[in-house]
């Protein structure tokens, strides 16, 4: 029975971390495609 709580705890952790990483990747993609000025940062443009 104790293992049940352990597995749920690790499952919650994995879901939380995966959600954070996915949201971050989505935000990065949105920002990257959102603006020419922002993408110019990669080329070393001054802000």
């Amino acid at each position, binding site marked *: 029975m*104790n*293992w049940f709580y352990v597995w749920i705890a690790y499952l919650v952790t994995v879901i*939380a971390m995966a959600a*954070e990483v996915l949201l971050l990747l989505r935000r990065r993609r949105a920002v990257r495609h959102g603006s020419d000025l*922002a993408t110019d*940062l990669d080329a070393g443009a*001054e802000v």
Partner: protein
Amino acid sequence: MNRRTIQWFKYAAPENLHRLAGRLMPWFAVPAAGLFGMGLYLGLLVAPADFQQGDAYRVLFIHVPAAWMGMLLYVVLAFYATVGWVLNVRASSMMASSLSATGAMFTVIALVTGSLWGRPTWGTWWVWDARTTSTLILLFLYVGFMSLQSAIDEVRRADRAGAVLALVGAVNVPIIYFSVEWWNTLHQGATLRIADESRMHASMLTPLLVMIAACWLYSIAVVLGRLQCVIRERASSGVHMEAAR
């Protein structure tokens, strides 16, 4: 001023910090994944069961690192927010904004895993004792910081308001840490002591330290990734140019 000092000041400029964050991120993300795998293997398969709690204690290998990261990231957030406010350093305020979501996530993990550990060992999901309540307040502080920042349209004003909240809320961190010593609580004492030798056996201490290292590296990688987003978003909205006028 020597050459090295000048190099550090260079990264106060958001465009330089953006490039540095992009270069550093993989160096933290890849080892974090490896250490998580190693920590889970050692913690779930190699470490022996506890003689009192059985296998339920294995929640500790994620609960303790998450609770530590929740507190630590808040201290770092408060530091950067204050530096950004007092010295008017844009990069510091951006760093503070980038830290909040990861800190909140680790605090949620600490509360949920603590509850899942409490059920088989305390016989209850939740108690309003000093440690759990002050950790819940920490989560509210993170949520308050993020809400405040997103509620104010002008970014520089949002940064200043967030800095005040972060600085005031920093008082809560020592309360969380010392709560188990100051008050008689159901929560056990500190698992790891900074100035004292650990009372855990090496077979249990090793996976815990590996998981703590993994959480550190994960946090740095994710925060650097989010920092790049914040810099890009503020660049595209022309915030720096407005502030410079």
